[in-house]
C-alpha cells in the first residue's frame, strides 16, 4: 500500500501514538476591514484535554480557530505548535502539523462511501477503486480503534447527520490529526447523539488527542470541557479549569453582565377554550409508515406546549402540516374553531398561525432578498404595504428599521441581503417577523438554534410574553431542558405517535428522555 500514499498525513499517523500536541497562540490579532474579530487573544491547548472555546455569536471563536487551522492568516501574533513557532499558510499545512477541523457544514461527498470519503484526496481514485476491500479494511481498523462503529462501505448520503459527523472526525484521524477542532458540533445533534459524540471525544482524549469544541452552549461546557476559554467581543474574557467554573460564571464572562432570571411560573392566563385543536391527524410520508399517525392534542391560549422527540419521528411533518405546506391524509386542525386541514398556507396565516421552521434557510427566509423584504414577506402579500396596488418601499424600510432595533438584529441595516447576516442574526430576523405579528398560534421549531445565551434568553422572554398575551405556542426543540423550562405541558413524539403527554411539573428529564426512545410506560394517544 505504501506506493499508494500521496496525500498529507500518511496513514502511519493513525497507527503511532500521538506526540502530545500542545498548541499555544500568542497575541493573535485579526481584523476584517473595520471589524476587529480577534484582539490580542491568547489561547493555550494542552495535549490530551478537551477544551471548550465559548462565546456569543460573533465573539471571534471561529476566526481564532480558522487561524489555527490555516484558513485565515493572523495580522499579528504567533502560533506555537510543539514548542516550535509556525506559519500555517493553508489547511493543508495545518494538517501536516496534525491540526484538523470539522466544520459546521460537513464537507463530505454524499455519493461516496464512508471509506472513499475518508481516503479521498490522500491517494488516487483509481487506486481506491481497485483496492476497495483493502481500503475499507484499513478505514474500519481506524474507526474501530476509536470505537466509532462506522460501516466503511455505507454511502454517506444515506447516513444520519450524527454518523456523517463521525465520518468527518474519522477523516481527520485517518489523516493523522492529533488536534481536532469542532465548530459547533452539537448544533445538528439531538440529546442522544450529543452524548454519543461526547463519548467519542472522551475516547480521543484517552488516546492523547486534544480536542477544541467551539460552542455557545453552557451545558455542554459543564458536561465535557476540562478547560474553557471564553471570548467576548473579540477579546479574551477568561480562562478557567474544570472545577473553577459553573454555568452562571461562564454566562457572565460570555455576555459581560448578569442575566436576570426568566420570569417564574408557567402560564397563568390559560384560556378556557383551546385555540389550536388537532384531532386524529395523520400525515403520509414518502416511506411506507405514516410520518404522523393519528395524533390529537390541544393548545389553549396562554399556554406553551413542548413537542420533543428524536429527530425524524414526525415533528418536522407535523410542523409543516400546521403551516399548511404538507397535507394531512386525515384528521382535523382547528384554530379558534376554524377547520384548516388541507387548506393553503395563506389560510393558516389568516387564521393567525405564525410559523418558524427548523430549516430557516429553506423555509423561513429568502437569502437573496434584503433584510427589509424578508421582514415584509407576509405583510406585502396581505396588502399592508400597498395603497391602490402600489408598494411603499419607504414604509417597508421604516418598519424594518424599527424591528431590527427592537429585536437587536446586527448589523441593523435593512438594505443588506439576508444571507449576509450571521446564522444567529438570521434567526433573530425570522423571529422578529413572526413574533411581531402578534399571532394567535405560534409554531416555533428550534427557535434558539444557533443563538447564544443572550439572544436565546431574548427569544425565551418573547415566547413567554406572547404566551402571557394569550397566544397558543407549540415549541418544538431538541434541547430538553430548554423545552421543559418553558413549556406548561410536554408531548413526546415517537414514530409519529404521542408516546407521552403530561404537564411539565409532573415530569422529569429522564422520563422524557426514556419516552423519546420508545421506552416510555405511558403510550397514550392523546394529550388533554
Amino acid at each position, binding site marked *: 500500500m505504501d506506493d499508494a500514499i500521496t496525500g498529507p498525513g500518511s496513514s502511519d499517523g493513525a497507527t503511532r501514538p500521538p506526540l502530545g500536541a500542545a498548541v499555544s497562540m500568542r497575541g493573535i490579532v485579526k481584523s476584517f476591514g473595520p471589524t476587529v474579530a480577534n484582539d490580542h487573544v491568547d489561547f493555550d491547548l494542552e495535549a490530551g484535554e478537551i477544551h471548550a472555546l465559548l462565546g456569543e455569536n460573533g465573539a471571534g471563536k471561529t476566526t481564532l480557530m*480558522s487561524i489555527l487551522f490555516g484558513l485565515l492568516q493572523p495580522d499579528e501574533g504567533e502560533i506555537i505548535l510543539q514548542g516550535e513557532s509556525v506559519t500555517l499558510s493553508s489547511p493543508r499545512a495545518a494538517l501536516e502539523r496534525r491540526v484538523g477541523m470539522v466544520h459546521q457544514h460537513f464537507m463530505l461527498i454524499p455519493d461516496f462511501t464512508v471509506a472513499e470519503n475518508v481516503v479521498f484526496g490522500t491517494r488516487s481514485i483509481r487506486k481506491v477503486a481497485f483496492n476497495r476491500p483493502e481500503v475499507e479494511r484499513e478505514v474500519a481498523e481506524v474507526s474501530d480503534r476509536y470505537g466509532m462503529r462506522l460501516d466503511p462501505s455505507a454511502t454517506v448520503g444515506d447516513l444520519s447527520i450524527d454518523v456523517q459527523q463521525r465520518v468527518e472526525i474519522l477523516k481527520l484521524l485517518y489523516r493523522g490529526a492529533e488536534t481536532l477542532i469542532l465548530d459547533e458540533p452539537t448544533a445538528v445533534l439531538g440529546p442522544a447523539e450529543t452524548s454519543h459524540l461526547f463519548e467519542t471525544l472522551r475516547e480521543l482524549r484517552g488516546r492523547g488527542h486534544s480536542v477544541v469544541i467551539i460552542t455557545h452552549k453552557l451545558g455542554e461546557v459543564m458536561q465535557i470541557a476540562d478547560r474553557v476559554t471564553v471570548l467576548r467581543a473579540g477579546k479574551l474574557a477568561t480562562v478557567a479549569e474544570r472545577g473553577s467554573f459553573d454555568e452562571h460564571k461562564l454566562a457572565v464572562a460570555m455576555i459581560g453582565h448578569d442575566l436576570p432570571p426568566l420570569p417564574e411560573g408557567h402560564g397563568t392566563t390559560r384560556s378556557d377554550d383551546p385555540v389550536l385543536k388537532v384531532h386524529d391527524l395523520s400525515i403520509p410520508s414518502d416511506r411506507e409508515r405514516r410520518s404522523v399517525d393519528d395524533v390529537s392534542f390541544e393548545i389553549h391560549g396562554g399556554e406553551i406546549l413542548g413537542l420533543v422527540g428524536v429527530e425524524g419521528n414526525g415533528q418536522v411533518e407535523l410542523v409543516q402540516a400546521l403551516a399548511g*405546506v404538507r397535507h394531512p391524509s386525515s384528521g382535523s386542525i382547528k384554530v379558534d374553531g376554524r377547520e384548516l386541514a388541507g387548506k*393553503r398556507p395563506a389560510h393558516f396565516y389568516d387564521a393567525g398561525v405564525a410559523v418558524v421552521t427548523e430549516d430557516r434557510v429553506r423555509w423561513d427566509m429568502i437569502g437573496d*432578498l434584503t433584510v427589509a423584504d424578508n421582514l415584509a*414577506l407576509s405583510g*406585502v*402579500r*396581505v396588502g399592508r404595504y400597498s395603497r391602490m396596488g402600489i*408598494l411603499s418601499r419607504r414604509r417597508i424600510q421604516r418598519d424594518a428599521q424599527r424591528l431590527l432595533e427592537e429585536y437587536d438584529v446586527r448589523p441593523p441595516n435593512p438594505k443588506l441581503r439576508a444571507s449576509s447576516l*450571521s446564522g444567529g442574526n438570521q434567526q433573530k430576523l425570522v423571529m422578529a417577523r413572526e413574533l411581531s405579528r402578534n399571532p394567535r398560534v405560534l409554531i416555533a421549531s428550534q427557535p434558539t438554534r444557533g443563538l447564544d445565551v443572550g439572544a436565546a434568553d431574548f427569544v425565551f422572554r418573547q415566547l413567554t410574553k406572547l404566551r402571557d398575551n394569550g397566544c397558543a405556542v407549540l415549541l418544538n426543540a431538541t434541547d430538553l431542558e430548554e423545552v421543559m423550562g418553558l413549556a406548561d405541558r410536554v408531548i413526546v413524539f415517537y414514530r409519529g405517535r404521542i408516546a407521552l403527554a403530561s404537564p411539565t411539573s409532573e415530569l422529569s428529564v429522564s422520563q422524557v428522555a426514556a419516552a423519546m426512545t420508545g421506552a416510555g410506560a405511558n403510550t397514550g394517544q392523546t394529550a388533554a
Partner: protein
Amino acid sequence: MKRLKAGNAEVSVGSVTDALTGGGDSWIRGFLSGVLALIIAVVVTGLVMLALGADPIEAYDGMINGAVGTRPAFAQTLLVTAPLILTGLAAAIPFSARIFNVGGEGQLVAGAVGATAMAFWFSSLTAPALVVLAIAAGIVAGAIWGLIAGALRAFFQANEVIVTLMLNFIALLLADYAINSSWADPVSPQTRPLPAGVDLPIVWSDTLVNLGIVLAVIAAIVGFFLMRRTPLGFGITATGYNPAAARIKGYEIGVVTLAVFAIGGAFAGLAGAIEVLGKHHALVPSMSASYGYTGIAVALVARLNPLWIIPSAFFFAAINAGSNTLQATAGVSTASSLVVQAVFVLSLLALRVIRISYPEVR
C-alpha cells in the same frame, strides 16, 4: 456556491441563478463583466475573421457604421430595438420567478396574428380606433399564448421549456394558415395590406422609426414598476429566489406561474402588433427574425432588470443592423455578427459565474 481555494484567493463557482441575476454583484461589477465579455467577443471574432482572410478592423468599422454611423443605419437599429425590448421583457419577467419562457417567438407571432385579425375583421372602424384595437388584440393574443404554457405548467407540471418551444412552432404554423386564408394577398406570399391608415405614426421624420419604440420603452418602464413597486412583482421575485419560503408565507406558485406567462406573453404580443402595424403593414411569413430567442439573451445581459433591457436590446439590435453591411464592406458573412453575439453571451455568463475573490468577512 462552490468554492475552491488557491492560496489566499478564492475561486467561486456560482449557480445558474447567479448567472441570470449576477448573484448579487454590484452594478459596477456587473458593468465591468459586460465590458470584459465584449472585449473577449470582439477579439475572438476578430481572430475568426483573420483566419478566414478578412480584415477584422475593416469589418468592425463597417459594422459600427452600419449600426449607428448614418441616419438610416441608426433608424434601422432603433426599429429592431423595439421588438427586442419587448421580447427581452417576455423572457425576463418569467425568469425572475425562475420560469423559463423560451416562447417569446410564438407569443410575438400570436400577437401579430391577433393584431392582423382585428384590422381585417373590424375594417369598418376608423383607422385610429383600429390601431388601438389591434394593439390591444396583439397584447391579449400574446398573453393567451403565454397562458397556455402557464396553465400546462401550473396545473399539470409540464416542463415549460418544452411546452413554450412547441408552442412556437404551432404559432408559426397558425400564422401560415392565416396568411393562406381569405386574408391572402393574390400575388405575394403574405396577407393583403392592412386598411389604409392602420399603422403606427412615424416619430422620427424621414425614417421608418415609428411609435413602436416609444411603446417599447414605456413597456420597459411598466415592467420595472411592476417588478419593483407592486405586491405581484414582489411575489414573483420572492418565488424566484426561494419557492419554498414564498409558499409557506402564502404566495401561490401556481398564481405566480400564470401571472408571469400572461405578462411575458402580453409584452411579446405587443411586439407582434408593433411589427405588423409599424413595419410590415401585413402579416408576413417570417414575422419574427428570431426576436423571441434573441430576447432571452437580451434579458440575461440586462440581469433581468427591465430598465437595463433597453440598452441591452439596443446593443443586440446594433449588432444585428451592423451585420447587414458586413457582407458589402468586408466581404465577411453576416453570420459573424452571430459569432460576436454568442461569444459575448457565453463569456458574460462565464464571468458572472466564476469569479476570483479574497475570503469573505465572517
